[in-house]
């Protein structure tokens, strides 16, 4: 059981480095994918909603600390991400969920909600424009994140077929 928590944290370290060092090179007009959302979705679909909610909380805290941002913002948005992804957890369809287009849908949805909430929390209220917030801080980063989840689906489906 403990290994189930240690494993994503160990994967988190190189992913966080890529997120902070490499992914800024792929950002388009300040919109960047979030690899940690993919990690949370993947493990939530494997181990369930409660696990995902707690994992989101822990990884959010770690990312807040190492990125120098507002502590609590990623924490909350990733907690919601884990909770939301948990609704797609099905014990009998674990392999199907992480190896098919379902995973992309889950990552897109969670990416949209996570990015939207993070921006909502970290912005002063007088500068919020709800429409641009939904599009630029929600939908676009969410879809961009899902694009980066594509290799996982391809790799997992090949392994399944093999």
């Amino acid at each position, binding site marked *: 059981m403990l290994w189930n928590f240690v494993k994503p944290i160990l994967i988190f370290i190189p992913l966080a*480095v*890529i997120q902070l060092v490499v*992914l800024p090179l792929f950002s388009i007009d*300040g919109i*960047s994918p979030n690899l940690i959302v993919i990690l949370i979705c993947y493990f939530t679909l494997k181990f369930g909603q*409660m696990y995902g909610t707690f994992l989101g909380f822990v990884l959010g805290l770690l990312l807040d600390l190492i990125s120098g941002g*507002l*502590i609590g913002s990623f924490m909350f948005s990733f*907690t919601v991400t884990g909770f939301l992804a948990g609704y797609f957890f099905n014990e009998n369809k674990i392999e199907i969920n992480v190896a098919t287009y379902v995973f992309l849908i889950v990552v897109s949805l969670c990416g949209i909600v996570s990015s939207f909430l993070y921006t909502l929390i970290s912005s002063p209220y007088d500068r919020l424009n709800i429409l641009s917030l939904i599009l630029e801080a929600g939908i676009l980063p969410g879809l961009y994140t899902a694009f980066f989840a594509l290799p996982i689906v391809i790799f997992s489906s090949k392994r399944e077929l093999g």
Partner: protein
Amino acid sequence: MINFFRRILTEFKEYVLFVSLSIISFFILSLNEKPAIKKLRTFAFGNFALVNQVANYPLSIFKYDYSLRELEKENAKLMLEVNRLRKLSVENENLRSMLQFRDTCNFPLISADVISKLVNKMQGNFVINRGSNEGITIGMPVLNSKGLIGIVIDTTKDFSLVRTLYNVNLNVAVRIERLNIDGVLSWDGNKLIIKNIPSTYDVRIGDRVVTSDFSTIFPPKISIGIISEREQVPVGLLHNLTVKPFADINTVDNVFVLKIVPSKQINHLEMNLLKK
């Protein structure tokens, strides 16, 4: 009663956990300015920056290569500019010595590399590979050869956390150079704006924006950008101006920290602007 709570906890355990963790998140969010939380963040980003620095090394080879041509071009331009200014400088020094003025424009620059960035529409932050060992302290301005980039908000021995102009929590006192109009520049998530400038002023597209004399965080006359858009207001006396920064903040890799020590009392007052 106990059975009732037990039943609630068993049946809705996912919701109970979710609500509890969300409450903890918001509680921690409200404690961001507490010294203990700041210390924890400084410790965490300072240590992780070491890992980022190692990962950044192979990438930096490509980055330097990319900016080399730009730097050479800039050097040539500066060389021409230096020649022109040298003569004026000698004359200026003679006049200053006659008036017994002190030299006030000799600010030491510390060069640094950006080693990690948090790309986000609202919270522009990055970590640089110079810290308190080089004499960097909180509140020092960060710039590059084109203009202002941000301000140091946290330091460890070897690294510093920089809040860029693309951060909703940074407000900068600025001046439109041609008209000497002062205002406050802030990031709204999409663009840099100077709010509430009287629409009767003859502000033109292309007017230069620099740091204001009123700011003690930033020394005056540091280039920031140009006016790129003027808001059209059919009614009302005030309008907003959009500023396009000279420095491409999202892609910047090499920066300079301006090593100035502002007045502590005034700095304390102005640093309140940085707080949310």
